[in-house]
């Protein structure tokens, strides 16, 4: 029974640790499917995390905090959209700028909130169901945002592959010139995709500062935004694989902590490198097949669109 309990603890931990990656990766996936590469995920997450935290402290409501985080993420992505879509700046450089700006802005905004305690979002406690053995903790014992992440995954998968709007989005990402010739507004569609990415990144940040930790610390995302970007590549731009990958990375993070808890003499600093090293290894393994990446990546990814050209 001990082994089973430990396994459940690790699984639940992996889902919790993976959820911010699920949000961020699904959002970025939609943006990239429309042909926009937004490297600013980390910055949007941080601003979402700090704004969500500040609003929660001020209003006393986690839910308003979460909404504020989503709005903050969208505002950040709007800046990115104006620069890359309307002013046609280089997407890679602008994404980096967004991250640098987000790191600075979040540290600046959050300076008075470091160490402030809050009541984070608690797991749902459904009578009877949450107390079931095995199924209780695995299926019925999560917090609200985890269920929202499940729903978001289903919505994204349905939207991309089963809806007409999703087909148009993919068309814009594959060939913006063809989509433009067909009369679709490439820029407007990309704006929406970028804003969706920003909203998801904000939600991802809120999960970290309001549920997972729950507190605010400078740079608390610790590269998760970049891992989410890598996840989109691992997943060859498919939502199901992105979700699975996110939990796998959550699992690696959790395993590292458990190895220490079991009393092995490992430096906490070296354990902390595991998710990053795993990201590099998986990225290399997946990218090795250049044709596969080329076939799966949206063909217009990262290319600016100027209609009069």
């Amino acid at each position, binding site marked *: 029974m001990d082994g089973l309990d430990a396994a459940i603890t690790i699984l639940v931990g992996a889902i919790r640790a993976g959820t911010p990656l699920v949000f961020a990766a699904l959002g970025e996936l939609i943006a990239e499917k429309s042909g926009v590469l937004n*490297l600013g995920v980390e*910055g949007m997450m941080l601003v979402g995390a700090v704004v969500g935290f500040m609003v929660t402290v001020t209003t006393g409501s986690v839910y308003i905090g979460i909404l504020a985080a989503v709005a903050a993420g969208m505002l950040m992505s709007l*800046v990115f959209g104006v*620069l890359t879509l309307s*002013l*046609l*700046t*280089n997407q*890679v*450089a*602008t994404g*980096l*700028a*967004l991250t*640098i*700006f*987000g*790191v*600075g*802005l979040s*540290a*600046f905004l959050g*300076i008075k909130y470091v160490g402030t305690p809050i009541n984070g979002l608690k797991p749902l406690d459904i009578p009877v169901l949450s107390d079931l053995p095995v199924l209780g903790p695995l299926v019925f014992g999560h917090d609200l945002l985890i269920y929202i992440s499940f729903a978001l995954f289903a919505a994204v998968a349905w939207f991309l592959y089963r809806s007409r709007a999703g087909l148009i989005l993919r068309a814009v990402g594959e060939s913006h010139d063809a989509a433009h010739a067909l009369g679709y507004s490439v820029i407007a569609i990309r704006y929406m995709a970028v804003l969706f990415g920003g909203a998801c990144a904000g939600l991802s940040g809120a999960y970290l500062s309001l549920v997972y930790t729950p507190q605010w610390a*400078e740079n608390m995302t*610790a*590269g998760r935004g*970049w*891992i989410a*970007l*890598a996840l989109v*590549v691992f997943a060859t731009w498919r939502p199901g694989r992105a979700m699975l990958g996110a939990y796998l990375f959550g699992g690696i993070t959790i395993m590292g902590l458990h190895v220490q808890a079991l009393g092995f003499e490992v*430096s906490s*600093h*070296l354990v*902390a*490198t595991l998710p*990053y*090293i795993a*990201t*590099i290894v998986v*990225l*290399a*393994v997946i*990218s*090795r*097949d*250049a044709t596969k*990446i080329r076939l799966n990546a949206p063909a217009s990814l990262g290319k600016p669109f*100027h209609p*009069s*050209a």
Partner: protein
Amino acid sequence: MQLRLEQRQSTSRAMQYATPVIAAGLTMIAGIALFGVLGTDPFLALYTFFIQPLTSLYSIGELLIKATPLLLCALGLSVGFKGNVWNIGAEGQLTMGAIASGGLALAVYAQDGPWLLPLMLLAGALGGMAWAAIPAFLRTRFNANEILVSLMLTYVAVQILGHLVHGPWRSPEGFNFPETRTFGDWGQLPILVEGTRLHAGVFVALLVFLAVWLFLSRSFQGFKVTVAGQAPAAAAYAGFSNKSVVWVSLMISGATAGLAGTVEVMGTIQQLQPVISPGYGFAAIIVAFLGRLHPVGVVLASLLMSLMYLGGESLQMSMNLPLAVTGVFQGLLLFFVLGSDVLVRYRIRLVRTHQTEPA
């Protein structure tokens, strides 16, 4: 009426020089607005941020000290960015350079001599190159995106440094502080000007500046990098190997970032600590773009960026504003640099849109 972008026949040279100045001006205006919102006197704040750091000999020394690692990192990065190789892990390569050179200084502690100085610089450059070799190898052999790999390695490098200074390399005389011994006399760069902390690292940066300039303007390999970035199809047609461009770009930027970390620990810090850089490797990305990827521009941009670091400190000390103001300004500056870039390639036109209105 509507604003339209109209593509220019050729890029505007005047705008190429004007846009960094426009961007700096816009950052200043945004700064005034930001301070206004914060309820501080914006003009006093701007004076404290931009002018006060230049009013004493000591702080001018500080300006050059901080510009040194920024310049070193940005020079290397600008080579890569020219060739469309996106090394954004300069911070990690800087850290590895510091670990390599610092490790050497600690290994020969109390047995050093004049030979240590050049050897540490070499070790630092090699450390940075080794760290940059990983994304280069994974990109050329496995097609893995160098942006993600180099960035991930930054987190790894910082954790390795943390492990070393908390554990095996911790100073035996340091009362359990997470820091190494202070390097021996030959592990420290000499001070250049009495009464300041300005050290000889600035000469290292100037040498690298000359080398990078010559490389980009006079060498065939440098030409290949430029062509690969501006016209990948032409580069392929000319038979320039893209793999060699990736390797050359990453080796140069790895070496310069490694040197940046080395002069920082040899000159400014004189030991290893958990944090040796306040994000110089990331700020250098901004410096490279602000300097238009040209060595001379990069020198000017690194001085401006250094001033922004000092300005943040000066605001913190005399007006009690958070140090993070610097990060906000850095991000804004890069936004404005990139945004005003549109003026180089496009003309902004006012267009009448009455014909599209419904009748």
